């Protein structure tokens, strides 16, 4: 609304939260009026509307810009209100107190730097006073001031105020949050908003406005270890731009040219070559909060979803299993055994709830219960299990990369913080792969350069299925067809590996014990050939999902195209299922179609 300012004042986002009808909007309306932040005529206009509708005027009506809202008399969404003091500009995010609108409260609060929590002096601490307090803590907002509002309704009584302070402080202690101050106010009467009130001679500390100005601007976390979730890798070749640019926003720390960066979970490393900008002088570094773009010295293959860190700093955690605290806002409960999507940083991964450790009671958040599902508005501690390993930090180490959301049916339905990385089955093998990637000597010829030269993308076509269904026949036919089309393709029979590379572990009649190691070695060989740009066709008997995941750990998982041959059900994530080879030519056409749709080969 108001825009006049002598110069470049800083801006701060504040969320105002609390239980429904505890008077948040009234406090904001009063703040606007007392700081002269209203457009001319607005106050009169609202007063006039009230008069016409025979409603007593309330400052809250000032905020109810939407027709819907006035009809319902409650704040539906997090409206933004702009005002300023001599110290700074404020964006006040009015978070709805009604329980139905918790997701709006969260949206408003998750961009706030500080919070005002309003408690009705007459009603006292209520359900959402606690829940919002918990949300504020979980969202990572460290500064909070509690306004005990409607003091006029309790005759400005100090004991009432003190009792609320004591009760709420005890609750905050339990969740590890401390309020910077408690202030007795009346939004309706304007007490202790912009100035102290003679109705409460017992209170002589800061006013609400002073409390706002006393919030400290949190410094950007530039001194933490470097973290950058990769948003994308750009190559605008069509526009004649040869640069291969890694893009993402720096969450913490800083990075400059010449520094060694490692991309997790793969552990691939390279050195930052140049920082890239448009219409600006090239900076000496990119630091926390900045949208960054840079090129790398080696042409390593990285993609969206990886987490960049520096080789000489604290490494992020990599695991499939995480212990988390989360809050759930889906009308359908969050249940074990059901598939959801997890988003942490820029990675999106299939996830299940492995175990629910405890659920806090939604109304008092004091007692932990054991429940078998997490319901609407529950706060819970649980173990999540991802299909593939993801990279992250614990919230204690680095808060911004220790946060996640859960998607169910296209919508964000929950969010939370990561407390611990738990061990998973493939940890050892992943360590080996990370070590390999760390030691990897990159060729001067990049992967995409090879792909462009060969006019194909490298791929691992994995033909699997039960014994004697014709896997080898199909694999060789695929090789033949692609070879005829001029592709660089290679059929690698499993026996070629078993009796050569695997000679030391290959024992007659002892296939199962060493099967994971066989699979790993097969994948390592495949990895070399894929790096060379080859389309590789491999057969394997009855591959399981677990074995496929071993291969996905070793080889870039987006280069693998598993084909299941046979009409029985299988648990593996196949790219294509071939029930039988009755129409052989048609099957080959379908395989070709798959490769074209994945951009591995191109339509003629």
């Amino acid at each position, binding site marked *: 609304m108001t825009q006049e300012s002598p110069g470049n004042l800083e801006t701060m986002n504040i969320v105002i939260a609390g239980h429904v009808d505890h008077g948040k909007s009234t406090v904001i309306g009063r703040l606007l009026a007392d700081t002269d932040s209203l457009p001319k005529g607005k106050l009169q206009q609202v007063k006039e509307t009230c008069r016409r509708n025979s409603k007593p005027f309330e400052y809250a009506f000032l905020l109810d810009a939407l027709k819907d809202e006035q009809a319902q008399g409650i704040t539906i969404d997090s409206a933004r209100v702009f005002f300023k003091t001599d110290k700074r500009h404020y964006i006040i995010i009015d978070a709805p107190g009604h329980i139905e609108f918790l997701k709006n409260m*969260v949206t408003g609060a998750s961009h706030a730097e500080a919070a005002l929590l309003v408690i009705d002096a007459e009603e006292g601490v209520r359900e959402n006073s606690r829940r919002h307090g918990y949300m504020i803590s979980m969202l990572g907002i460290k500064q909070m001031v509690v306004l005990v509002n409607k003091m006029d309704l309790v005759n400005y009584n100090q004991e009432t105020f003190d009792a609320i302070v004591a009760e709420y402080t005890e609750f905050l202690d339990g969740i590890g949050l401390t309020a910077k101050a408690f202030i007795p106010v009346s939004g309706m009467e304007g007490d202790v908003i912009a100035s102290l009130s003679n109705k409460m001679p017992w209170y002589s500390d800061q006013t609400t406005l002073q409390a706002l100005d006393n919030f400290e601007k949190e410094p950007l976390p530039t001194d933490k270890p470097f973290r950058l979730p990769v948003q994308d890798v750009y190559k605008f070749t069509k526009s004649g731009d040869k640069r291969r640019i890694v893009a993402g926003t720096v969450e913490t720390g800083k990075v400059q040219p010449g520094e060694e960066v490692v991309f997790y979970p793969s552990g691939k490393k390279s050195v930052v070559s140049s920082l*890239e*900008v448009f219409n600006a002088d090239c900076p000496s570094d990119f630091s926390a909060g900045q949208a960054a773009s840079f090129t790398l010295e080696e042409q390593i293959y990285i993609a969206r979803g990886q987490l960049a860190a520096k080789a000489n700093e604290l490494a992020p955690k990599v695991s499939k299993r995480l212990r988390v605290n989360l809050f759930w806002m889906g009308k359908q409960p969050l249940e074990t055994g059901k598939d959801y999507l997890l988003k942490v940083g820029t990675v999106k991964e299939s996830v299940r709830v492995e175990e629910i450790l405890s659920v806090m009671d939604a109304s008092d958040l004091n007692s932990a219960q054991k429940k078998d599902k997490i319901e609407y508005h529950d706060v819970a501690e649980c173990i999540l299990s991802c299909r593939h390993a993801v990279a992250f930090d614990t919230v204690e180490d680095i808060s911004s990369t220790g946060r996640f959301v859960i998607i169910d049916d296209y919508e*964000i339905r929950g*969010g939370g913080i990561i407390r611990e990385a738990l061990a998973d089955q493939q940890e050892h093998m992943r360590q080996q792969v990370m070590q390999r990637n760390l030691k990897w000597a990159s060729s001067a010829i990049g992967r995409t350069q090879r792909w462009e030269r060969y006019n194909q993308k490298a791929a691992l076509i994995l033909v699997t299925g039960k014994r004697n269904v014709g896997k080898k026949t199909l694999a060789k036919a695929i090789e033949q067809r692609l070879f005829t089309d001029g592709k660089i393709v290679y059929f690698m029979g499993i026996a070629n590996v078993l009796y050569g590379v695997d000679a030391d572990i290959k024992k007659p009649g002892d296939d199962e014990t060493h099967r994971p190691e066989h699979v790993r070695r097969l994948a390592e060989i495949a990895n070399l050939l894929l790096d060379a740009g080859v389309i590789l066709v491999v057969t394997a008997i009855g591959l399981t999902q677990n074995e496929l995941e071993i291969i996905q750990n070793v080889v870039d998982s987006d280069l693998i195209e598993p084909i299941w041959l046979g009409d029985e059900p299988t648990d593996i994530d196949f790219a294509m299922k071939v029930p039988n080879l009755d129409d052989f030519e048609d099957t080959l056409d379908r395989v070709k179609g798959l490769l074209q749709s994945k951009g591995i080969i191109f339509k003629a």
Partner: protein
Amino acid sequence: MDHLDHLESLGVHILREAYANFKNMCMLWSIGKDSTVLLWLARKAFLGHVPFPLVHIDTNFKIPEMIEYRDRLTKEWHLDMVYGQNTEALKSKNTFPDGNADRLTCCKLLKTTALKHTLSGQWPRYRFNHAAGKYEVDANIEPFTGVIVGLRADEEGSRSKERYFSPRDRQNEWDIADQPPEFWNQFKTDFAPGTHVRIHPLLDWTELNVWEYIEREKIPTVSLYYNQGDGKRYRSLGCEPCTNPIDSQARNPKEIIEELRSGQLSNIAERSGRAQDAEDGGGLETLRKDGYM
């Protein structure tokens, strides 16, 4: 980092999230100051490139200079420029300037309806062919599932309720009372078939921020925003018959910044020169629920 740097970085971050998640995405370019800042942010995000089409809804009543400016930048910046139009309403003269419709109906027909059908691909899209130097009917009629829009929360009431990533249902409608949550920097980037998502990278910018950024980055803007000596300038641009200039001496972005900071305009709504707002009960809510920007 100062406040503008923060706004810029967040805007770039949002554009990159959108680009990574939406295959068929476009950016609405109204030729006005806000969406031109948005276009500039795209060039920042993609290092000088704009890797998706820009869509302009041409009501045929835009001030001529706006169209000249659009086509000049299209050529200079190698933009993938597309425009759409409600040719039927224009042909049958079912418009406000022709005297056959009220302002709101006209807005609905020439903007909202044209926008919906251009986005869905049901009506022809005219794409600039850089080799031929002219607009041609585009063969691509795939619906856009991600639409980047330059609206700001401080413009008017209903816009202050928007999300950065805001879903629209199959009917293009916006359910204000039931919007998805946005946590930290996690946005709604998943969508059901048939629905689309509006993306609002400039949500937290104010009118002053927009001008400060135009001044800092030296972004070219149409001269209609500046006093050309007659003591008047446009503060918000729209169709010629429904847009009025304000009294102002500001001749360039720097003077507009001074004007805004001085408080001379603080009691006048930015869109006060836009006649359709007044007809919608002082806001855009009715129009916007139905799909207006």
